[in-house]
């Protein structure tokens, strides 16, 4: 029997039981729709963050401490201040290093500008003016002096007055003390829209966190450093020297927890790591959604077995007029594959639809996970074949005489 004829007959019986066929494919539809939705959301999320980051190369890199969470995967930033002033000085001496700008957060709980108070919304960081060496200022310039500050665009826009150079800003610390600074400049965020509102003030005057160094001295220490290389060609060697120094000779190496790792990353490295993470997470969630697919294929198999029993008489008739076991197998397999493919196609459409809705609501860009669409359709066919095999085999075994007697 040729394929077109089996498609015709199978399609007949699918259409004859519209509701049942629809319910059968529902499992596959939900499974595939869930997978595709998560792929769209994951892709959109990643695209949204990474897509904003200026591809423009800068000869700078960030030093941070990372750890792998005990349960779960990915990396977490560790905010412990382990990079001491001595580490900063030592790194600055290395060849190719132009500057080392330390950075640490201040416990500012409230920011006030022009009588408008923002509580907890603006993150305050202490750093040095070198930090802005490669930054782009939309207004003003880096701070120069204890009572000056730099805000990023997000922080500027957080206030109704929309901060610009020359505006006054009052910072309230956790212990109730306040200090007033003048905005010297507004800086563009290199990490795009996702960056939280930040205000930067000079570390020398505002940063007070100290640790006891391995040598027994009290020194100021920071959780983050930014290293600037002299030129783009120096980035790789500087990265290498920095890693060598920080891992072997620095105070940080001794101060960090055993499980923590010192990461020296350029912007590209960070993007790569982030992409990896989102990718892993998406696949993980996708796999969970894939369980729905397994349930879906059991659904198809179940209905097909019922359908074989129900159609015993028809099988008998077909055998009586010359259908071989193979013909019967083919009919039932084609039917379950058609159901699987319908499930896959509808599932992909629904998944793209939900994904589209999701990224639209979240303001992320739409991403079409083409390879996953291909995978989904392949899975649909596979589900059809696998779940149709046993019922088809049962149908093929039916004895024509017995079947014709069946009412």
């Amino acid at each position, binding site marked *: 029997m*040729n394929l077109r004829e089996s498609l015709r007959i199978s399609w007949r019986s699918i259409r004859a039981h519209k509701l049942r066929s629809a319910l059968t494919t529902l499992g596959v539809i939900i499974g595939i729709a869930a997978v595709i939705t998560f792929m769209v959301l994951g892709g959109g999320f990643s695209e949204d963050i990474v897509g904003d980051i200026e591809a423009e190369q800068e000869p700078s890199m960030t030093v941070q401490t990372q750890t792998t969470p005990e349960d779960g995967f990915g990396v977490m930033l560790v905010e412990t201040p382990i990079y001491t002033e001595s580490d900063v000085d030592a790194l600055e001496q290395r060849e190719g290093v132009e500057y080392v700008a330390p950075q640490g957060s201040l416990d500012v709980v409230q920011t006030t500008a022009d009588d408008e108070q923002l509580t907890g919304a603006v993150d305050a960081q202490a750093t040095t003016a070198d930090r802005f060496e490669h930054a782009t200022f939309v207004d003003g310039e880096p701070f120069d002096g204890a009572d000056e500050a730099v805000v990023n665009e997000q922080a500027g826009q957080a206030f109704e007055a929309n901060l610009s150079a020359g505006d006054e800003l009052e910072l309230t610390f956790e212990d109730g003390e306040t200090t007033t600074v003048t905005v010297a400049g507004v800086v563009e965020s290199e990490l795009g829209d996702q960056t939280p509102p930040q205000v930067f003030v000079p570390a020398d005057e505002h940063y007070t966190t100290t640790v006891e160094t391995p040598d027994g001295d009290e020194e100021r220490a920071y959780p983050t450093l930014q290293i600037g290389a002299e030129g783009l060609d120096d980035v790789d060697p500087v990265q290498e020297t920095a890693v060598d120094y920080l891992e072997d000779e620095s105070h940080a190496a001794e101060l960090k927890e055993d499980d923590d790792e010192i990461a020296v990353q350029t912007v590209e490295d960070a993007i790569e790591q982030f992409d990896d993470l989102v990718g892993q997470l998406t696949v993980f969630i996708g796999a969970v959604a894939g369980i729905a697919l397994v349930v879906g294929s059991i659904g198809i198999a179940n209905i097909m077995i019922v359908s074989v029993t129900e159609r015993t008489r028809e099988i*008998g008739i077909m*055998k*009586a007029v010359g259908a071989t076991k193979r013909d019967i197998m083919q009919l039932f397999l084609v039917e379950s594959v058609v159901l699987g493919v319908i499930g896959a196609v509808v599932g992909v459409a629904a998944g793209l639809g939900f994904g589209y809705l999701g990224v639209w609501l979240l303001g992320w860009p739409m991403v079409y996970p083409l390879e996953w669409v291909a995978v989904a359709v392949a899975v649909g066919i596979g589900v059809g074949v696998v779940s149709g095999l046993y019922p088809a085999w049962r149908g093929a075994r039916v004895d024509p*005489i017995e079947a*014709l007697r069946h009412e």
Partner: protein
Amino acid sequence: MVAYDTGPGAAAVTAESVRRTYHLAEPIHAVDGVSLSLGEGSFTAVMGPSGSGKSTLMNLVGCLDTPDEGRIEVDGRSVGELSDTERARLRGTEIGFVFQTFNLMPRLTAVENVRLPMVFHDGVDADRQERAQTLLERVGLGDRLEHEPSELSGGQRQRVALARALANEPTLVLADEPTGNLDTETEAEIMELLVELNEAGATILLVTHERAVAEYADHVVHLLDGKIEDLEHLSDARDVTAREQATEGAGNRRPTGEGEA
């Protein structure tokens, strides 16, 4: 009484001491030691009371069932020794079966039902539809092509079943009461069609309860309790033979050669 031999021409169907037993509380021999030879191109009717084993015999000859004892040859091949697939092929290509209960596919239209045997027999694709239509026109159903069985009368269904049996130009046509639900006029048309087929060379085996229908045939096999009670020749053709079982009183009720040809 006619002694068993293979007859003058080649035999389309040969049965040798065929027995089909159903094992219920006590074994029922639905067909009990039947020996019969149907020559190629012969036209034979089977008569007998209800439950005498007519349908069972038809199933055996139609390669749907296999004998528990003895041997059946169709088209020179021993049915019991064929594989399932070979039997299916034989059913599809050489045999046209009209069932007592029609056995039409409920969700397919008349024309699709008639196409069905062609679908399983990979012939030329293009003329299937046309051929199915022609066959339905031949049985007087040209205006019911797209009707499903549930939308047809009993007699119309029977005629669809007959048209379907002819789909693959079978050399052996088995019809289990094909005129059971028809008025005399349609009955005559259907019987003329079978005679036409027979004249074109097909071997025909027909079950009927009516003497008038049986008289279209050249031979009448009388069954009783699964055994051949009598073989009656209505014409000069002697291409159908049967070996009588040595049963008391067999053959006494109907003398042979009584009917007109």
